[in-house]
């Protein structure tokens, strides 16, 4: 685990979108003007909302949306774990596999055949060459790397996100009340 450098003034926040629908990121944007306050407290260093290609070093908090479904996700989540102090499963797909994992009962070969090889244009067989290789099974993040905190919900609503982030930024353990902990 990497400690944040002591002389750094603001926590470095990253958000990551693995195998999910981006709903968790939409919910994050739904913080509305609270996002402006948040961005005064943190440096947003990586994520779909930031134009940085490589996951940076020394990230303090990373919100991971989505499950680990393919080789790219696998590589990225390992990199995230190496470079991040607090990794958070952000939403049900990261936490349980959720909708993303509904393919787990279908063998990958059959899936690719149905979705690509037997599909008509524009997503024909050639698309399979371009997409990263699927893992045999979709995995929740904690089954691949250690996770420090969880934020359930599909997507987690704004109250949950705000409560979780403020606890993490205050250096406290996240302790949501039961009504804020439900899946779904």
């Amino acid at each position: 685990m990497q400690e944040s450098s002591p002389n750094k003034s603001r926590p470095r926040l990253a958000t990551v979108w693995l195998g999910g629908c981006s709903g968790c990121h939409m919910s994050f944007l739904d913080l509305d003007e609270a996002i402006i306050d948040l961005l005064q407290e943190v440096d947003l260093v990586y994520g779909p909302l930031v134009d940085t290609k490589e996951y940076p070093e020394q990230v303090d908090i990373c919100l991971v949306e989505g499950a680990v479904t393919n080789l790219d996700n696998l590589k990225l989540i390992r990199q995230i774990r190496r470079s991040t102090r607090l990794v958070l499963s952000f939403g049900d797909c990261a936490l349980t596999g959720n909708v993303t994992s509904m393919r787990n009962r279908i063998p990958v070969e059959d899936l690719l055949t149905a979705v690509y090889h037997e599909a008509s244009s524009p997503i024909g067989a050639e698309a399979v060459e371009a997409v990263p290789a699927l893992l045999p099974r979709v995995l929740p993040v904690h089954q691949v790397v250690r996770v420090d905190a969880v934020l359930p919900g599909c997507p987690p609503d704004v109250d949950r996100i705000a409560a979780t982030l403020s606890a993490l930024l205050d250096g406290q353990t996240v302790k949501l009340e039961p009504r804020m902990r439900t899946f779904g």
Partner: protein
Amino acid sequence: MPVITLTIDEALVSARVGQTVLEACRDEGISIPTLCHLDGISARGGCRLCLVEVAGSNRLLPACTTLAAEGMQVSTRSDRIDRYRRMILELSFAERNHQCAVCVSNQNCELQALAAELGMEQVRYDYLDPDLSMDLSHERFGIDHNRCVLCLRCVRVCDEVEGAHTWDVKARGIESQVITDLNQPWGESLSCTSCGKCVDACPTGALFTRGATVAEMHKDAGFLRRILDGREKRQWRR
């Protein structure tokens, strides 16, 4: 009525002879999580969420099937109990396919609520992702085996209250499944009266009203008390 005295969570309480530990606790306002239990049908002791510690026994005992006894010392909360309850919930989520976000019972589900209440954060076991079916042959109701936790409330309510005994169980252990009649499609069942008791008794999204979509399935297990009071206390007699 013969009365006994026992200790629950270090307080002396009285109970009636024949009451279970669960009933004695509830009379005292002590809540114990349950899933397979439903007031008004026979106790099953299947889900094991109601486990309590009883002095003199190394094993945890299910409160819903353990009779209260004179001098018994019961603890309803401890780290060990909490740990096992969470483990049981995790195993339930791992055993079948529970994607709450796309479930008819989302936000109206006893399993989901128990997980939140008892602090189940994530499932440490491998999800089994079984390939399970649905039966939509009944004209009013459906069953989704992906969401079934085998509490057998449907089996008991249909047998003991409706008197139809449409539901039963096939196979054993992890292969178990609830079935209608002799494993025929529900819609072809000759015994089912379409009363809907099983649907309201089901704690999860497994049994539902056809046409209900995500989060639309609201259940009311309280119907059972009303029916039984009507019968037993003869409230329906003119």
